[in-house]
């Protein structure tokens, strides 16, 4: 199965071959992030070495001169290490830089907490002017790359390591919360790597006669409030599911938005304000409560609670 980072590497090289505005910057992780695919394009692949803060600044300079830079590294190093560079040299001047953070959430598994970005969405969405995207499968990935090139302004794109099964048959709608399946008891609202787990969970819930709506949120900021409200009106409660800390991520976004316009319980599945550890990714998802069974359990535990009825 083609991973979304492969989609990124192949697609950006294909588009960059024709569009001379595209430049790709790597900080010595290109073979892992697939940014190296772009190195076949002469003069527009920029190897910055192990110096991410400079890479982000160089991207800002290239954007000032009219290029569309894609600065690529692990999500921890983009959003965490370069936070102030992104804040002052990209978000504040509102420059047209696309930041790609790979190996999101627990997906770098064995590398351990130093490499697991559990806070990158929280950081990036706090920045004015910044769009925050997290594609769930290869179609969403292709869409966010193509659309972010059309947009003038800073964009953060988060991508995971490992295979992401297809969730769409057709092209998803950009910036929209895409409803993959309708339901009336609970809405499972997920992003990125967690969407296919939500789909599996919904199938298991069906066996328990629980009807679950599934929605994929590739655009975390700005959030599609209209669809979110529609979803909230259809179900009894919402479970948000993310490969990120429950502090400041998708669950927080949805709670923030709905708390001002609609009364509905929102439960969160995500990393519970803790650093994880080194292990195979699947084992981490089990230990830290991010499997489809955790979703099922959360729904069943809460579906009959009186305050929700």
């Amino acid at each position, binding site marked *: 199965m083609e991973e979304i980072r492969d989609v990124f590497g192949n697609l950006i090289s294909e588009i960059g071959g024709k569009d001379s505005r595209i430049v790709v910057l790597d900080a010595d992780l290109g073979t892992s992030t697939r940014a190296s695919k772009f190195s076949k394009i002469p003069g527009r692949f920029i190897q910055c070495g192990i110096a991410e803060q400079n890479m982000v*600044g160089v991207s800002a300079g290239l954007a000032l001169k*009219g290029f569309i830079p894609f600065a690529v590294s692990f999500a921890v190093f983009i959003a965490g290490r370069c936070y102030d560079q992104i804040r002052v040299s990209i978000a504040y001047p509102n420059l047209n830089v696309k930041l790609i953070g790979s190996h999101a959430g627990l997906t770098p598994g064995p590398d351990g907490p130093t490499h697991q970005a559990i806070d990158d969405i929280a950081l990036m969405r706090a920045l004015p002017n910044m769009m925050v995207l997290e594609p769930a499968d290869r179609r969403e990935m292709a869409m966010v790359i193509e659309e972010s090139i059309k947009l003038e302004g800073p964009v953060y794109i988060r991508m995971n390591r490992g295979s992401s099964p297809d969730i769409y048959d057709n092209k998803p709608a950009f910036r929209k919360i895409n409803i993959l399946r309708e339901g009336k008891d609970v809405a499972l609202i997920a992003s990125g790597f967690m969407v296919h787990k939500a789909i599996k969970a919904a199938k298991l819930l069906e066996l328990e006669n629980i009807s679950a709506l599934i929605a994929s949120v590739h655009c975390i900021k700005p959030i599609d409030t209209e669809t979110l409200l529609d979803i909230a009106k259809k179900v009894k409660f919402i479970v948000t599911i993310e490969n990120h800390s429950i502090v400041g991520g998708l669950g927080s976004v949805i709670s923030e938005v709905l708390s001002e316009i609609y009364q509905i319980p929102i439960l969160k599945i995500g990393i519970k304000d803790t650093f994880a550890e080194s292990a195979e990714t699947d084992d981490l998802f089990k230990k830290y409560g991010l499997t489809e069974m955790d979703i099922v359990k959360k729904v069943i535990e809460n579906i009959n609670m009186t305050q929700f009825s």
Partner: protein
Amino acid sequence: MLSKEEKIFLEEKAKKVRKLIIEMLYYAGSGHPGGSLSIVEILLYLYYKEIDIDLKDPRSTDRSMLILSKGHGCPALYAVLSELGIIDREVLKTYKKLDSILQGHPDRNKTLGVDMSTGSLGQGLSVAAGCALADKIKGKSHKTYVILGDGEIQEGQIWEAAIFAANNNLDNLCAFIDYNKLQLTSKVEDVFGKCNLLSVWADLGWQCFEIDGHDFEEIDMAVKFKSEKPKVIIAHTIKGKGVSFMENKIEWHSKKISEKEFEKAMLELR
């Protein structure tokens, strides 16, 4: 070589710009006099001799550019842009006030003529390297200038950028170090050590110059020197230059100017 007339013209401008800086800081009630007064000649030289801003389209980046990485020195930049006719003289009085186009640190979107937003130290050299690289890729002959503080180069990102620029042969990049030897709380050498800046930058692959940063002829010679490497001009300057009681005084890095001090300073700058 600068002609005699050019030199006299620039020296007159320097006096005027220093007055504008003191006025701006006095009206604002706060700001950074020391590090603004030390970069006046560098800025004037660059804007009158090297950077050809199209007054009808100051936002265009298809030209040589300046990034004031030590963004707190922006009163000097605003004063020079005002002399060029890009910022209205009256607007200078609104510096740092509510709804002003003149922010406490440079804002490229609010202020026409400001090429890059800066303020968090250490970031401008990377951005300048990006601009220089962009011009190289496009085959343009523009130059990118950046002004760094001598305290600012304590930031690690500066050294990432220094290595990057040399390794990418950015001979169209020119960095000035405003070497006034003082920072907010101490002498620069107290925290940076007594390292030889020239040899450090030279070892990294830069073409280095050491000049008097208040001497237009020396600035001119260093800028004009043809080099196949990125260029760093270590400009010996005086913090607070032009106002006797501010010169070489650590406390004038950032200090409110009283009415008495304002009058005294303006008298000296007449």
